[in-house]
């Protein structure tokens, strides 16, 4: 008897649940539909037309993709994005991995202070970081050149020298992300069970053995998460290079988004062309992330 009652109750509750649930998820789905799915489908459909803001659009198949792939500047921007990934991702991973170990061994009060301090840059706008580093990199007497001068090194035009610009732009980006990455790495580190190290100690394993056999394999998921996050944001860099160099000198720091941003503002190309470029960048991001995923996962399977 009781179970029948209970069943009836859950049934009516379920019908009610449906309504409540749809009411509760509706706003989220609506926003995602209008601002993620609709634009994505618009991009896919319009990228195959010669549509611009004015006038009609004609279906031209993959002409836009061919056109933008042939564009020298777009190709340069993709290569630059990969260079940024090649510099920023390994540096961030190594720095945060090392500093996570330092964080782990800090006295508790000091630990709180250090963790908070390194996190502060994370809340700073890319634009602000850019103007601070433009100031620090000033040629005539910015702080960076003052420090170089102190060591007897000659002045550098950090942002105007085509050889240096890309590295100089990386610096504020690394500064902005270092704290967050270190804390995530630290979280991964303290989640490794102590017993692993204890039994390794009993076996007489040294520092490096423990690092390679225990620490690094245990951090695989953390590293994967950080890597994909870093790759995705780095390929989509805009604020810092746009404000610091505008993509120059000699297009050495132009990124895909700077290129597409400029192209969407000019009337030289159709919107279809710009949208095709955006989709290509998305494909590049997915490709690089797939490679990252494969590399890290294959290591794992070799271990098991």
């Amino acid at each position: 008897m009781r179970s029948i009652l209970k069943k009836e109750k859950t049934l009516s509750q379920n019908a009610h649940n449906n309504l409540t649930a749809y009411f509760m998820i509706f706003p989220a789905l609506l926003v995602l539909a209008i601002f993620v799915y609709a634009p994505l489908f618009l991009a896919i459909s319009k990228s195959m037309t010669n549509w611009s803001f004015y006038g009609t659009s004609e279906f031209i198949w993959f002409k836009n993709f061919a056109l933008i792939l042939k564009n020298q500047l777009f190709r340069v921007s993709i290569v630059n994005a990969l260079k940024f990934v090649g510099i920023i991702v390994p540096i961030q991973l190594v720095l945060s991995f090392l500093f996570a170990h330092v964080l782990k061994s800090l006295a508790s009060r000091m630990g709180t202070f250090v963790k908070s301090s390194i996190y502060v840059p994370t809340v700073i706008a890319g634009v602000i970081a850019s103007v601070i580093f433009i100031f620090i990199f000033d040629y005539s007497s910015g702080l960076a050149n003052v420090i170089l001068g102190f060591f007897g090194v000659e002045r550098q035009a950090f942002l105007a020298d085509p050889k240096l610009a890309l590295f100089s732009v990386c610096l504020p980006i690394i500064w902005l992300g270092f704290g967050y990455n270190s804390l995530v790495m630290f979280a991964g580190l303290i989640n490794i069970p102590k017993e692993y190290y204890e039994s390794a100690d009993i076996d007489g394993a040294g520092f490096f053995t423990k690092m390679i056999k225990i620490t690094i394999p245990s951090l695989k998921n953390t590293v994967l998460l950080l890597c994909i996050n870093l790759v995705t944001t780095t390929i989509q860099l805009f604020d810092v290079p746009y404000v610091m160099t505008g993509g120059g000198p000699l297009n050495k720091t132009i990124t895909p988004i700077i290129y597409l941003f400029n192209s969407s503002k000019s009337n030289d190309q159709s919107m279809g062309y710009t949208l095709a470029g955006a989709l290509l960048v998305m494909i590049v991001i997915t490709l690089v992330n797939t490679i990252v995923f494969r590399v890290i996962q294959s290591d794992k399977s070799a271990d098991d």
Partner: protein
Amino acid sequence: MSVKRNRHNIKGLLNNLFGLIVALISIFPLIWMAIASFKPENEVLGFPFRLLPTRWVPDNYIQLFANRDIPFLSSIKATLIVSIIATVLSLAIATMAAYAFARLDFKFKKSMWAIVITTMYIPGIATMIPAFILMARMNLLNTYAVLILPSLAYAYNILFFRQFFLSMPVSIEEAALIDGASRFQIFHKIFLPMSTSPMVIVGVSIFVGYWNSFVWPSITVSDPSLYQVTQIIQSYNATYAQKYGVVMAGSTLVAVIPIALFLIFQRYIVKGITLTGLK
């Protein structure tokens, strides 16, 4: 034994010292910015090099507010309006959806969850320009709506709250259901009040995200009365090339708000990341 302990102490001391140095390097650019904003014009870059100003002056700030072409205060106001409204709405949207996905059973739950989660894998670049085109067609350029609406639902935040709600004991809910509370009442009266910590973590991250956003406002807003703070700093940077004092004054004021928010809530935020590994 004591030798080993000593070595341990020295190692600990060195570690603490190193940690302290890195912490100071991390905040140094911000301190450098703030110091420069109080320097007289000839000392910001001048020789000989000085760490601190000979006298602390408000000149740069006065010049900042005197410039009527670049409306600094009104952009602070406009950005505050956008960030606050967006934070409140985003939190409401994310917590509601998360509660439904965590605690309710309904038809098509799995496919709807997939629709939400898939958006995490669609990079902003693919949707930004077409979203701009849609907004232009709807005549929404140069409005508060275009600044606020597009990022209101963020799958990551929904996921974050869902994980939190899933970890709450079912017994609370059962008791409330027996007392005749509706699901929405349970969400509103029981779950939300117990979610201070994730609300703070996600809320600050949403606010900071809006406060710092640059590319979207640059594309969609050209009306100076709606300029966001990042746009203002960018135009200072273009106008006052070499006059770093003024740019640093503006940057200091713009940076103070997210830093203050972080410092107020740092306990929650640092703990949240170190516990979950999520922002």
